[in-house]
C-alpha cells in the first residue's frame, strides 16, 4: 500500500456541478441488489470482518463523555478483538487495531495520551459539530485548537444551509478555510446527508467538498434523523470516482451513523470494492464511523471460530 498524495483541491468548477445527474430510483435499485450479488462466507467473512475492524473510527460523541469513558474506548481501539480469537484466526501478528478513535475536542488530550505510541490516530469532530452554525472564525479556531491538542484527523461539518440554497461558493470558501486550518491533519468533511433533501444535493455537496480539498467526505454526524444509507454512500463514492478520473486526486470516504451490524459492514465493503476497487479497502481511504458495530463483529468472529453463537458479555466493552 503506497502512501497517497493528499487531495490539494481544485478551483470551484460550476460547469461540473451543473452536469451532475443522479437518478434516485436507479441508485436505490443498485443498492438493493448489490449486497445480494456478493456474499462472503466462512474464512472470507472472518477476514473481511477483521478488515472492517481496522477501518473503524471507534467513536464516542456524547454530552456525558468523560476521560474515563475515553480511556476505555482507547483501550478497546488498541485491542478490539480478544487475543484468543485472534490467535485462533491466525492473525495474532497482524496488529489489528481500529482505524482511529473519534471524540469531541475536549476529550482529544485524553485520547492522544491513551493512544500514544500505538499509531492509532485521534480524530476530533469540529467546526461547530454537529450543526455547524457557530461563526466561521470560531469554527476555524476550534479546528486549530484540536490540531494543537494532537488530533491528526478533523471531522468538520458543513453548514447545511449552504447546500440547500446552492450557495456553493460560500461552502467552497468555508471548507477551503477549514482545510487550511487543519494544516497537516486530515480533513474529513461531513455532509450531513440526512438533511440535504435530495441525492443530487448530496452529489453536488460531495463535489464542492472535494474541490475545497477534503481528504475524506463523510455522510453524517450520527445526529441526523437519517444517517449513512447505501444510496447516499453510492452517490458519494461515484462522485469520488469521477473526481479522481477528472483530477487524479484520491479522496477517502467515511459512512457514519446507523452502521451497527456486521452484515451492514460487509455491504459497505462490497460497495467500496465494486465501485472504487480494492485500494479503497484500506484505512487511508475508507473508514466506518461506528460505536456499536465492533461488538457485533466480535460476536460474528467468535461464531466463526467456535461454531457457537456468542454472548455479548463474553467480549470486553469499550
Amino acid at each position, binding site marked *: 500500500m503506497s502512501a497517497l498524495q493528499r487531495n490539494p483541491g481544485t478551483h470551484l468548477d460550476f460547469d461540473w456541478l451543473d452536469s451532475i*445527474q*443522479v*437518478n*434516485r*430510483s*436507479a*441508485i*436505490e*435499485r*443498485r443498492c438493493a*441488489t448489490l449486497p*445480494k*450479488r*456478493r*456474499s*462472503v*462466507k*466462512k*474464512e*472470507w467473512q*472472518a*477476514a*473481511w470482518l*477483521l*478488515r472492517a475492524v481496522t477501518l473503524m473510527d471507534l467513536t464516542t460523541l456524547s454530552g456525558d463523555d468523560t476521560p474515563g469513558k475515553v480511556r476505555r474506548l482507547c483501550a478497546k481501539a488498541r485491542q478490539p478483538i480478544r487475543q484468543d480469537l485472534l490467535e485462533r*484466526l*491466525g*492473525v495474532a501478528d*497482524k496488529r489489528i487495531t481500529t482505524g482511529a478513535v473519534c471524540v469531541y475536542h475536549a476529550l482529544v488530550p485524553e485520547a492522544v495520551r491513551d493512544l500514544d505510541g500505538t499509531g492509532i490516530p485521534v480524530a476530533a469532530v469540529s467546526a461547530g459539530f454537529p450543526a455547524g452554525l457557530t461563526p466561521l472564525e470560531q469554527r476555524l479556531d476550534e479546528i486549530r485548537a484540536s490540531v494543537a491538542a494532537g488530533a491528526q484527523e478533523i471531522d468538520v461539518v458543513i453548514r447545511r444551509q449552504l447546500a440547500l440554497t446552492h450557495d456553493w461558493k460560500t461552502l467552497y470558501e468555508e471548507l477551503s478555510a477549514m482545510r487550511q486550518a487543519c494544516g497537516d491533519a486530515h480533513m474529513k468533511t461531513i455532509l450531513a446527508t440526512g438533511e440535504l433533501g*435530495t*441525492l*443530487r444535493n448530496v452529489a453536488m455537496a460531495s463535489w464542492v467538498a472535494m474541490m475545497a480539498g477534503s481528504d475524506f467526505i463523510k455522510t453524517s454526524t450520527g445526529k441526523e434523523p437519517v444517517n449513512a444509507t447505501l444510496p447516499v454512500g453510492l452517490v458519494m463514492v*461515484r462522485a469520488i470516482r469521477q473526481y479522481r478520473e477528472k483530477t487524479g486526486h484520491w479522496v477517502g470516504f467515511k459512512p457514519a451513523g446507523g452502521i451497527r451490524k456486521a452484515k451492514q459492514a460487509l455491504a459497505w*465493503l462490497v460497495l467500496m*470494492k*465494486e465501485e472504487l476497487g*480494492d485500494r479503497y*479497502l484500506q484505512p487511508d481511504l475508507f473508514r466506518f464511523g461506528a460505536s456499536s458495530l465492533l461488538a457485533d463483529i466480535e460476536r460474528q468472529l467468535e461464531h466463526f471460530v467456535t461454531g457457537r453463537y456468542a454472548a455479548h458479555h463474553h467480549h470486553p466493552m469499550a
Partner: protein
Amino acid sequence: MANRKTRKRKTTKAAKATKAAKAIAKKRTTAPAKNRQGARKRRASAPATKAGRLPAKRLEAAKTARTQRPTVAEIFETMEYGPAPESDALANEWLDRHGREFGHYIGGGWVAAKEHFDVRDPARLIDLARVGQGTAEDVDAAVEAAERAQPGWEALGGHGRARFLYAIARHIQKHHRLLAVLESIDNGKPIRESRDIDVPLVARHFYHHAGWAQLMEDELADFAPLGVVGQIIPWNFPLLMLAWKIAPALAMGNCVVLKPAEYTPLTALLFAEICEEIGLPPGVVNIVTGDGRTGAAIVEHPRIAKIAFTGSTGVGRIIREATAGTGKTLSLELGGKSPFIVFDDADLDSVVEGVVDAIWFNQGQVCCAGSRILAQESIADKLLTKLRERMEKLRIGPPLDKAVDMGAIVAPVQLDQIRALVQQGADEGATLWQPSWSCPAEGLFYPPTLLSDVAPASTVAQVEIFGPVVVFMTFRTPSEAVQLANNTRYGLAASVWSENVNLCLDIAPKIKAGTIWVNCTNVFDAASGFGGYRESGYGREGGKEGLYEYCKPRWLAQAKARKTRAPKAATKKSIGKAPPAAVELIDRTPKLYIGGRQRRPDGGYSLVVQDAWGRRLGEVGRGNRKDVRDAVEAAHQARGWGAGTAHLRAQVLYYLAENLAARRDEMVTRLHLMLGSDDAARQEVDLSLDRLFTYAAWADKYDGLVHATPFRNVTVAMNEAIGAMGIVCPDEAPLLALISTVAPAIAMGNSVVVVPSERHPLAATDFYQVLETSDVPGGVVNIVTGLRDELVPTLAGHDDLEQLWYFGPESGCAEVERLSVGNMKRTWCHYGPPRDWTDRVQGAGREFLRQATHVKNIWIPYGE
C-alpha cells in the same frame, strides 16, 4: 430449420417428426452463421468448452483443487471474494425421491412415460434426471383430462378458483428455496436471480391472479372461459413463464395442458407436485414434458381452443401457420432486439448498471434484453469507457454461488450460436470487447461481451443473439434515436435513459414496443401487461389486458354452444316487392378511394353489381394488388391522424354522422335496392349513425390504466393505435358492418384499408362521398373494391400492414392467418356464427376497441 439438439438422449427413438415438430424443438431463433472464414479482428476470449460429459475422475480432481482454501490471514490481505455456494442437497433429495425419473402429470396423477430423455445441469455438465418424452397419445390424454375438469372448474366460480390460486401462491412461497435451487441447477441461472427475481415473481403472479379469479364475475361479467388451453413455454424463465401462462388461464376458468421446455422441465414437475399438495382438482393443470414433437402435438390438437406460446419468432411463425384456419386463438411472446437508449443528460453510472440488468441478466437469455445500446454521440465514448470498467467487475461462475452475476448458458447449441454470431459481428467489422478475466473452463459459460462500431446494417445489430452480448451504436438527435430504435422487425421492449422527463415521455410513445422502461430495465410485475409489437408477437401477459387472452365474449361462447346462427340483418324472406330499378340520370362511376382521392382501379377493370332482385345496380372498380399497395402506402402517409388529439377524431366522427344523416334518404334508397327491404335499409342507416356516435363518444374515453406495480413508479398502460390496418368487411350489412369496423379503428387513431362487402360494394363507394365532406384526412380511410379473394392475400401478405380484421366467410380465415406470418401481423378473424351487426353487443363496443389498439406499458420510476 433442423433440430440440432446436442443434448444427449439415452432412449428417445428417432421418431418421424413433422417439419413443424422439428422446428418447435428448437426453442430460439438460430441465425445463420455466415462468413465464418473472414479475417478475425479480435478473437473472442471465450473458453471453448466442448459439449459433453465431464469424466467423473476429472470432476473429483477439480473438487480437490477447490478445497485448498486460503487462510483468514491471507484473505485479510487480498480481500478477495471466495466461494459462497448455496446447497443443492434438498433439491437432490427431491430428485432422488422421484428416482430421478419423471412421467407426465395428467388428470391429477403421474403417468409413466414410454420414452425418456436426460435433463442436464449446464454448469456442471451432469445429468439431473430423466423426464418423459410426451407423445401425441400423452397429449391427447392430457387434453381429455382437461376437458373433463373444465366445466367443474368454471362452475367453481371466481371465489372458488381464487382459493386455489391463493393456495398455489402460498405454496410457491413455502417451497421458495427448493424451487430456486432446482431452477438454477436446471437452467444455469445464478441463484440470486432465481431466488430474488424468478420465484418471487411467480408467487406474485399467482396472488395477483387469485384476485382476478375473485373479481372475474364483476369485472369481466360478459366473458366466458375458452376451454382447454395449450401452453408451450421456453427455457429461459421456466417457472416464471409457467406462472405467466397458468395463472391467468386458471383464473378465467380454463384448464391447461402445459409443456415446459425440454432443457428445463424440472420446476414444472415440482409445480405439478404443488398442485397435488393443495388439492387442485384433477385435470385443471396437466404437464406433459417433451421436445418439439410434443409441442407440435399440442399445437395440432383439435380440441384445444387456444395456444399460448413464448419462444422464438421462428417457432411462433410455425405455430401461426399450423393453427391457421382452425379457429384456435393465439398469444405469442416472441423474440426481441430491444433498444437501450441513452441520452446525454442521463445519470451515466446508473445507465451502466442498467446495461448490466439489461443484457447480463440471465446471461442475456432474455427475450426483452436491452441488446442494442443507442447512445447519444456526445457521451458515447464516456459510456463505453464506463461500461468496459464495469464489465471487469462482473463475476461469472457456478450458478449456485451466491456471489456471481452470471451463470451458465442453457445448452451447447445456444453457446455455439452465441459464439458464431459474435464471430460474425467481429468479421463484419465490430470492435469486440470482453473482460480480461476468463470464464470457468468447465461448463457452458460465455463472458459478457460488448460489440461497438456496429451499424444498423451489421448482422449483430439485427438478429437476436440471445446471449450476454450487447451491441453499441450512436445517434445524434432524439428523432434519430427513435428511428434507430424502431429500425427492427421486433418490438418487445425498450429502455430510455434521461433525467429529462419531457424527453422520456416524448420518446416512450414513439417507440414501437410493448413495454417501455424509463430509467430502468427488465422490471416485471403481474399487474403490468407484457407483450410485443410487430414480430415480437401479440397478446399480453399480466394486468387486466392479459386476461382477455384467456376468455371470450359470452355471446360468442353461448352462440357457439347453441350452434345456432345469429339473426342476419336481412334474409331472403324479408325481401319485399321490387322497387323500380335504379336509373341514374347521368352515368356514375364509383372508383376506389385511396389517399383521400377517387382513383380508377390500376387494372382498368370493373365488376357489375346486382341489386337484391338480380338486376344490374351499377359497376365498381376491380381493385388489384397494386391498388392495395397504394392504399397501404396512403394509410401510412396518414400517420398524423393517430398523433392528433382524440377530441379531434371524435369531432370528425360526429361530423361523419352529420353528413351521413344529411344523405339518409339517398342511402336508404340505395340500401333498399341492395338488401331488398326498406325496413332493413332504414335500420342499417340509422344504426350506422348510432355507431358513428358510439365511436365518436369512445374516441376520447377508451382510457388506459395506471397499474399498481409494487415499487415507486407509475406504470402506465396506454391504449395505442396499431397504425396501418386492413379491414375485410362481410357481405351482409354493407354499410353498417363497414362503419362498425372502420369507426372504432379510426376512432383509436389507426388508418385503414377497407375491402367492402363484395356483394354490395356501392354502400362503401357512396360512403366515401361522405368521408370527403367530413374533414377525414386523406389516407385515413382507403377503400378498395373488388373480389375479396383477390385482394385479401395481398393485404394478409403485406409486411407493412400491422393488423388485419377479416369478417369474410370462415373458409377465408386460414389464408389470412397463414399469410400473416410475413410480419407476424395481428389478425382478427371471425369464426363461428355470423355476427349480428345490428346487435349492440356483437356489433359494437370494447371488443372492437381492444382489437384496434395495442396496450403499451410504460414504467416511470420517480423520486429526486
